[in-house]
């Protein structure tokens, strides 16, 4: 609000603005509230005025009148004060006489409700333990069902695509394949190279004590092929691609793009989910293979500088030490990791709210669910492999 200068008191402009103050006098029809000074926010114009500030009115008093001749300037803090005075007058049983106020202040005051309404609270009611457990169980079951039906839709779509009958756009698939594959090569390579190098370094330091340095080839090769590369690649992709999927779908939801698809009857599963899930589950095993080889290369580079073995000897030892089944195991795991990340990210995105904050929440949730899920799945795979004797 602009500071409005009351035209009536021709005070000298050079005079320093007086602090706002008020006092109550007794008028003919009741108390008279007299205000003076520069009533603005920076001058401390927001001050409390409650019903307790009005002395018990004498019998016959009907109204609280205002005297504003001492006001030099005012802004919203003055309106705030007037509003409180009006409420105080109402609770003291007095009518609020606003004729003494500047006309603009009267107009603003008329906009305000008689009382600040009690704020509408969110519908939050405290749940007891049973309700919470029940909600959680139902939610989990429901979520499992929805995710399963999404997975089913996607699988069906993928089978249709094999027959060339899919309604997926090839262009979308190619874009997604490119984003989930070649675009990730650099970061997957760097991380796996360093992991391989670290494994080789730690392994060499320990194995040297037993004069078993050559087994570092097995250590690096088996660790990378069986576990580390699959997990590290999946974690990178969960953060990189999973988060991106969730954010993209949540934004589309906020822009009503998903609604538009639904109205046209374009199935979300074939338009959005299929390219995303297909590309990540196809690319993840390939990235895993690439990551494993780079990891072994990282181990090789460190070993060459720290141990006495010929390069050819290192490779021969690696090939002899790491069986093909380790690669097959990791390859299969990577496929499931990729499918899981993409499916979880899409589901989280579709379930998101419609605001900017919700997009952030969806991206975070997709990454967290992706990473935790991958590690849990890996544990399950380890148990299964143990039972099957792989």
């Amino acid at each position: 609000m602009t500071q409005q200068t009351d035209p009536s008191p021709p005070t000298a402009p050079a005079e320093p603005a007086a602090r706002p103050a008020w006092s109550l006098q007794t008028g003919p029809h009741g108390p008279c509230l007299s205000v003076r000074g520069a009533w603005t926010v920076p001058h401390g114009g927001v001050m409390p005025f409650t019903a307790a500030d009005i002395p018990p009115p004498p019998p016959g008093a009907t109204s609280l009148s205002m005297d504003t001749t001492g006001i030099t300037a005012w802004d919203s803090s003055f309106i705030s004060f007037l509003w409180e005075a009006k409420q105080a007058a109402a609770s003291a049983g007095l009518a609020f006489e606003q004729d003494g106020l500047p006309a603009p202040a009267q107009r603003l005051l008329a906009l305000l409700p008689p009382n600040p309404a009690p704020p509408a609270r969110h519908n939050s009611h405290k749940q007891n333990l049973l309700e919470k457990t029940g909600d959680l169980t139902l939610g989990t079951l429901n979520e499992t069902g929805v995710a399963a039906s999404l997975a089913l839709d996607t699988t069906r779509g993928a089978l249709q695509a094999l027959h060339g009958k899919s309604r997926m756009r090839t262009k979308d698939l190619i874009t997604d394949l490119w984003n989930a594959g070649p675009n990730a090569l650099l970061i997957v390579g760097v991380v796996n190279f360093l992991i391989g190098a670290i494994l080789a370094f730690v392994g060499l330091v320990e194995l040297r004590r037993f004069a078993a340095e050559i087994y570092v080839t097995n250590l690096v090769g088996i660790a990378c092929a069986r576990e580390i590369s699959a997990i590290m690649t999946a974690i990178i992709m969960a953060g990189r691609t999973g988060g991106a999927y969730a954010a993209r779908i949540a934004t589309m939801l906020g822009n009503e793009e998903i609604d538009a698809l639904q109205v046209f009857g374009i199935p979300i599963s074939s338009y959005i989910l299929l390219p995303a899930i297909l590309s990540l589950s196809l690319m993840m095993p390939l990235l895993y293979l690439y990551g494993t080889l780079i990891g072994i290369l990282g181990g090789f580079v460190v070993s060459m500088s720290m141990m006495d073995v010929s390069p050819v000897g290192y490779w021969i030892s690696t090939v002899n030490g790491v069986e093909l089944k380790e690669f097959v195991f990791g390859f299969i795991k990577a496929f499931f990791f990729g499918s899981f990340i993409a499916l979880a990210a899409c589901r989280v995105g579709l379930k998101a709210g419609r605001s900017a904050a919700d997009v952030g929440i969806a991206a975070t949730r997709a990454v967290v669910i992706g990473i935790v899920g991958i590690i849990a799945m890996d544990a399950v795979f380890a148990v299964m492999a143990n039972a099957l004797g792989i």
Partner: protein
Amino acid sequence: MAESDTLISVRDVELSFGPKIIQQNVSFDLRRGSIFAVMGGSGCGKSTLLKSMIGLLRPTTGKILVGGEDYWAQNEHRRTQINHRFGVLFQSGALWSSMTVGENVALPIEMFSSQPPDVVRKLVELKLGLVGMEQAIDLFPSEISGGMRKRAGLARAIALDPDILFFDEPSAGLDPITSARLDDLILTLRDGLGATIVIVSHELPSLFTIADDGIFLDAVTHQPIAHGSPRDLRDHSTIPEVMAFMNRASTIPPTDETKADQHV
């Protein structure tokens, strides 16, 4: 007209995105206390002109004088200071979605004044009370309707007691009753706050009710073709495009639609 009566002077401003010219030769004065309408068909650059006045888009050439100061010649710090005289209501409210309505209004007050929390709270209640939204203070933007979001945006726009208010399509997407109430609210706030208002709109009834000055931007020639209040232009203008616009005729000129759609 006295010098101090002019709050903003726009002088020969040209707006463009790269080689594409949006508007050129835009000149007008914004008088204190007036409600100034920026009119024109869809895509003629109304919102772009507004953006250049509130500091979001630098004009290619020309000057925008705010209180005699060349706005775009100032450094960023000074521009921010000048911006504190502005209150902007964006097209869909542009409330920050991670904050409650009350926090949305409180943020500028907390950032740019050192008032204790209870004072801030009181001011927030007041601003929301002025727009009739005091009951929504603790709700999130996603929990309120489009019309309420707009009013909450208005409460945020007046948070710092600005003396110039910019409204981008204030009544777009509102039903006629809500829209009429918003017009009343704008008029009351103008009188009560003593603010000057710039309004970008093509809602004719609303323009005729509230605006007392204005400029008409043409999408084909990319320049203003008429100045004056919407009522005046409706009753006295002889320019075919303006007549067609003001009277909602669909035929004149036939190329308008296609050309206009290429911009913005």
